[in-house]
């Protein structure tokens, strides 16, 4: 602990490449947690992670109900994958995830991003993924600071006691 106090973490660069509720929130919680501790945070959204900062998609994130062996029904009962395929199940499960988070005072994606930028955190989008998904800067949430190449992002990740985190 003494060593940690003398030599604390100063900056985190977080990369979010996936667009499910839990992947995006892992990124948002870690970024917000950093700025709340006075740690600089830069967040880079790429591939399907771009959904989290795309105006049209950011409030419609879902949890995958197929191919997710850790997902169980309330009470810990098994949740067969075949159920996850039924229409409406993904939407229902996703709505439930969101309501559980709201109970813990975890905000919706747009508000969470605002909390991060209010604390000085910076949000970036990946240029390559934007080109791939045919997205323009106007499609992104207004406070996205810039669209970057991976080289640009690495250039921001220098400095003492900086960590890159891939969620």
């Amino acid at each position, binding site marked *: 602990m003494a060593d940690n106090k003398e030599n604390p973490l100063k900056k985190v660069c977080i990369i979010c490449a996936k667009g499910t509720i839990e992947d995006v929130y892992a990124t948002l*919680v870690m970024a*917000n*947690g950093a*700025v*709340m*501790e*006075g740690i600089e945070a830069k967040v880079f959204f790429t591939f399907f992670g771009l959904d989290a900062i795309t105006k049209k998609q950011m409030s419609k994130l879902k949890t995958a109900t197929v191919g997710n062996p850790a997902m169980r029904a309330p009470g810990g009962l098994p949740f067969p994958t075949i159920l996850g395929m039924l229409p409406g199940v993904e939407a229902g499960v996703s709505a439930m995830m969101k309501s559980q988070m709201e109970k*813990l*005072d*975890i*905000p919706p994606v747009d*508000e969470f991003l*605002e*909390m991060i930028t*209010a*604390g*000085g955190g910076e949000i970036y989008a990946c240029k390559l993924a934007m080109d791939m998904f045919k997205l323009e800067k106007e499609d992104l949430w207004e406070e996205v600071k810039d669209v970057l190449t991976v080289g640009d992002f690495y250039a921001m990740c220098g400095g003492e006691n900086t960590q890159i985190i891939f969620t």
Partner: protein
Amino acid sequence: MNDEGYMTDSTQWNREIAAEMAREEGIELTDEHYEVLEFLRAANEKGETLTIRKVGKSGITDIKGLYQLFPGGPLKLSSKFAGIPKPASCV
């Protein structure tokens, strides 16, 4: 006080103690600071889990304002100065 500088008995708290703790962190407390501290103390007394989101919705200040009032620790420093335990939430 515990070894992280949080008061162990919040009933011993008063404005002078808060001002003293804040000065050690280089912050001069204003009325707005005290409003936040009183809000946190009241919420803590009710057993609520504190988050910056809750303070941001209190009407005292928004989240940006909270970061300006308590630089580098909007919830940690404010909780410390309010004489309540270190926040146990991640938001």
